[in-house]
């Protein structure tokens, strides 16, 4: 083994599991994981109640009881875990869509799924007039899937064409944006304010009961994504080549879209629409690793981006906790301008 010069270094596993692990991708993943752990630690330590590393460890793994434990385990930890898992989920969702559309613009926030989730949540809050967390989350989930279905039906005539999907997605996204504004304008100011703040995307006030089911769901979806990653990479060769290698193209593509939509929708259901992560994380990971073959670096980058954005949003202005969506939206806007500029120049 190891007689082929792949132009990259691999670690060959020879046990019952025969794998080629890309060393660069693994190193990048490890570095980001270390950064995530450090950042998570920091996030658990700081706040109105300042804690030491030892105290956080004692709360997490030791026998600490009382108020400090409540702060770490019940108040801060769900938020940190949510940022990590949803960040990874959004990034993987973005990676799947960018791979299917073969375009860095093809991410769920650009394609309109996030707007669709917002529409779903708004309908629940403003039309059905329910402010319960669970119903809003359900509304967001249904909104995301319904939007995906509409885009799928419009864009998938005689197979997929990436660009068609993007154009249809942008159109639907714009329509949904107006629907959202209309819904907000027609409702009472007080309700509209709450609904509007949901639309920014935030991890504020999140707790275990809300977050745990979503986290588990996203983790299951991520496992499915890893299993489907190999056919996904075959599909990048084009439909004919992928089919001739034995990939069930249409079925696989449908399942992948389902996974990607579910990833975005469940993250959005809990946080509200958080843009930029799905769009940028796969591209950032690609810049670092020079390959899109593995989902691990993308997931790690996504988790890091959302976690650090949330830490920044909490600490940037003393005494004021910004919604994380505000931060990612501003970053996303800058990134999008750069991406369009870059694409226009290389085209």
């Amino acid at each position, binding site marked *: *083994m190891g*007689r*082929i*010069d*792949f*132009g*990259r270094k691999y670690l*060959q596993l020879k046990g*019952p*599991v*025969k*794998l*080629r692990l890309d060393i660069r991708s693994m190193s990048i993943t490890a570095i980001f994981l270390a950064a995530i752990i450090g950042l998570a630690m920091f996030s658990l330590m700081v706040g109105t109640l300042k804690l030491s590393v030892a105290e956080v460890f004692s709360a997490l793994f030791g026998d600490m009881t009382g108020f400090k434990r409540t702060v770490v385990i019940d108040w801060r930890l769900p938020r940190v875990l949510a940022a990590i898992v949803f960040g990874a989920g959004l990034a993987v969702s973005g990676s799947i869509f960018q791979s299917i559309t*073969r375009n860095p613009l093809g991410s769920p926030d650009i394609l309109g799924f996030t707007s669709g989730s917002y529409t779903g949540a708004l309908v629940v809050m403003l039309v059905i007039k329910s402010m319960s967390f669970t119903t809003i989350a359900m509304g967001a989930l249904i909104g995301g899937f319904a939007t995906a279905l509409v885009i799928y039906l419009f864009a998938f005539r005689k197979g997929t064409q990436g660009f068609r999907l993007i154009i249809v997605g942008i159109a639907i996204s714009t329509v949904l944006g107006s629907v959202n504004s209309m819904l907000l304008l027609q409702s009472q100011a007080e309700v509209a304010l709450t609904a509007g703040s949901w639309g920014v995307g935030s991890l504020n006030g999140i707790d275990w009961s809300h977050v745990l089911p979503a986290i588990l769901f996203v983790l299951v979806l991520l496992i499915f994504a890893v*299993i489907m990653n*190999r056919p996904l*990479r*075959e599909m*990048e*060769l*084009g439909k*004919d*080549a992928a*089919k*001739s*290698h*034995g*990939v*069930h193209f249409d079925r696989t593509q449908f399942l992948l879209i389902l996974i990607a939509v579910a990833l975005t929708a469940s993250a959005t259901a809990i946080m509200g629409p958080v843009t930029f992560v799905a769009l940028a994380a796969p591209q950032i990971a*690609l810049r670092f690793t*020079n*390959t*899109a*073959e593995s989902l691990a670096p993308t997931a790690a980058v996504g988790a890091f981006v959302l976690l650090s954005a949330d830490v920044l949003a909490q600490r940037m202005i003393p005494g004021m906790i910004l919604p994380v969506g505000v931060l990612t939206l501003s970053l996303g806007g800058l990134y999008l301008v750069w991406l369009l500029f870059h694409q226009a120049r290389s085209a």
Partner: protein
Amino acid sequence: MVITKAELQSQTISPIRSRLGVEDVTTQYDHRVISQNLSIEIPDQSFTVIIGPNACGKSTLLRTLSNLIKPSKGHVLLDGKKISTYKSKEVAKKLGLLPQSSTAPDGITVANLVAHGRYPYQNLIQQWTEADEHAVMTAMELTNTTELANRFVDELSGGQRQRVWVAMVLAQQTPLLLLDEPTTYLDISHQIELLELFTDLNEQGNTLVAVLHDLNHAARYATHLIAMKAGKVIAQGHPSDIVTEELVEEVFGLKCKVIKDPVTHTPLIVPLGRDRSK
């Protein structure tokens, strides 16, 4: 000789005796019928070339053979069984395809692209084995791409890139190879280089089926020629037996002279065009 009942049955089910063929196949796009009741056998160990004017159904035939299009009637037979009864990865171990257009993933190196040909042999826990490595190495040696192994596919020339795609199909290690217009967009020297490579592969025992546009390439390199027009087979056989002035006029509507190729002694088609000497 005693023929068992099972053998008799298998014979009555399939009159096609070679490894690959279509039986009484009708293909259509939407409602436009491309070919009707087509039965074709691809002779084993042949280099079969399908020729014909644009829209004659030759690409459709190749796509039907490679299981990319499902015929609306009839079926494709692979090793005596309907192709639709195989699992898709089993087909991929018998039948390789060089599609007309493929895309290379971002930033992929040559060896990694060739390694994609091993997909039918891999699964979640067996993603890279000794056999995979050996197949990729052999494929790159055959196509003379070993030196390019660590290069990025994006930075190769057209001819190099096509050789890499061929290497990917060879890494699939299929006894049957289908090639959809493999020489299009290549300059003449790369076209010949590729056709020579196909002939080598054929001489090593592979069965090849190609759609080619260039009649003279077809006449020179094919061991079996299928001439199609309007969804029907007009003639098939060894080029020296079937390529005549009459056939070219019938199939392509082109007046020509057929002479002997001074190098290979295969038929060489010289179009007449309009006579400008008058």
